[in-house]
């Protein structure tokens, strides 16, 4: 398929040592899916289900045991090339760790620009950086240039991280729990920003999360992972509202839902009186 980022029959095994014997953990087992431009695919599941391993394989931070990653229908290079990195970028979970405290904000965004667009003059660079900052709603961009990460809030830092991912001209962004470290009231803002950019530029987004509610509202398709396998997939409303697989139901049960106000208390009380009788 052209114009998409696709993984096909992806496997990743880790060898675990247990004393003198070894065992194999199938972190990712036979996973296939495609991210199309302008669409968001959400990957949901518990920690340890293999979501982040997939993100790391797609961004070439990890090599799969077997299977392939295809960009525009062509197999992606085994190791990341500059061209591949230009097109596929990542936003990490922890904005406090993913920016270098030693460098200014402008440095963080300038660097990918310099690497991927070597012809730019100093003035052009500066105006591109300002433009990118303003695109992620850090306005006016000039005021952020010389600041360091510690002077920004978590939400602002995550916006810088998004701007950095966009800087090379990425067509696909892998966002691994991009808002789970942020304060609740700014999460929706950052997700909305990603959605806005996506619509404006036709970005393909792989959104990795454990939060079913944002997965439902923020993505077109949801893939539910359990122990390295995709156990359910489909349009997001369909998966959340009519879950078919037992594990999806369990995940949905576990998500807090204010509509079930007082229900847990009543259930527990019912159990207790039931147990006494």
């Amino acid at each position, binding site marked *: 398929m052209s114009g998409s980022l696709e993984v096909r029959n992806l496997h990743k095994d880790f060898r675990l040592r247990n004393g003198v014997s070894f065992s194999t953990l199938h972190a990712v087992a036979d996973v296939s899916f495609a991210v199309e431009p302008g669409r968001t695919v959400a990957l949901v599941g518990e920690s340890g289900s293999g979501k982040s391993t997939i993100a790391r394989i797609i961004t070439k931070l990890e090599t799969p045991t077997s299977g392939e990653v295809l960009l525009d229908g062509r197999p992606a290079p085994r190791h990341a090339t500059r061209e591949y990195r230009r097109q596929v970028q990542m936003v990490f979970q922890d904005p406090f760790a993913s920016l270098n405290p030693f460098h200014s904000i402008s440095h963080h965004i300038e660097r990918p620009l310099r690497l991927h667009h070597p012809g730019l003059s100093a003035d052009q660079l500066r105006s591109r950086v300002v433009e990118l900052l303003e695109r992620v709603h*850090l306005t006016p961009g000039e005021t952020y240039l010389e600041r360091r990460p510690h002077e920004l809030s978590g939400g*602002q830092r995550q916006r810088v991280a998004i701007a950095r991912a966009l800087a090379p001209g990425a067509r696909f962004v892998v966002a691994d729990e991009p808002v789970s470290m942020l*304060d609740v009231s700014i999460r929706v803002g950052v997700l909305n920003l990603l*959605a806005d950019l996506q619509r404006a530029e036709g970005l393909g987004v792989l959104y990795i999360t454990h939060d079913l509610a944002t997965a439902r509202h*923020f993505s077109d398709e949801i893939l539910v992972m359990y122990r390295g396998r995709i156990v359910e997939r489909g349009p997001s409303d369909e998966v959340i509202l009519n879950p078919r697989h037992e594990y999806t139901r369990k995940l949905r049960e576990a998500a*807090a839902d*204010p509509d079930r106000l007082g229900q847990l208390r009543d259930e*527990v009380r019912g159990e207790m009186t039931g147990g006494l009788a």
Partner: protein
Amino acid sequence: MTAGASSPTAAARPVLTAREVSITYEVNPPVEAVKDVSLTLERGEILGLAGESGCGKTTLAYGMNRLLKAPAVMRSGQVTFHDASGTDIDVTTLDGEALRRFRWDKVSMVFQGSMNSLNPVMNVRTQLGDVFTTHRPGMSRAERDQRCAELLDLVGVDPRRMSAFPHELSGGMRQRVMIAMALALEPQVMIMDEPTTALDVVVQRGIVRQLMRLRERLGFAVIFITHDLPLLIEISDRIAIMKDGRIVEEATAEEIYRTPQDAYTRQLLASFPSLTGARGGFVRSGSPVEPGPTPAGGQ
């Protein structure tokens, strides 16, 4: 009834009350973390305390348990513990031996990130037993062991894991051990500061359910601190919403959810897209929502 203030029912008896508590961090410039907060915890209820990072919820909890350390100072206000025996204890003036006896026995706490607050070089038996050697010096070793096993059983950890060290337990199990420790002396109040935030949703649900069961069985009151408002609405009896050191709204969980009075409460509620309901303020609904009052600042 949609009154913003608390209106305890006539039958309810408070177990912990804070009156006009103000707490300041004496740094330069001083930070007023808690401003003039009054809060009443009824016997056996779950009181949710919600707010964002930096709103003062943890500081308030520490203040109510006399755990504040310099530079934090309680400038004014009073915290009173109403013991089941009928006597009132003024928590703010306790010190020395009386304070030591009060803590954990009457009010215990499950700390934030408490998965990591177990001592890595002590096994579960020693750490749980430590509570008893300190607070119940008369107990024999056999009694202690038996009580520890009971506690672990209560929170859903296999008592055979008693010799395990923290690194041999999963995050959820460590959290359960912490809750067992908080329950050890059968306190009347348990303060839980983000007890499940670092855990997986499925594990979190298990622990919350266990907590609700234990409350029915043992009848302690809980102050449950978290930013996860949907969870609070689901489990709490009453909820207090905190912002910038003040409680902006306090009402039953149902009132907070269905008829929030304060603008901030509404904003907080809107930050959580509904799992099954309408889409709310999400861009992808088709009609672009204005970016709002750029929420990035001031965090």
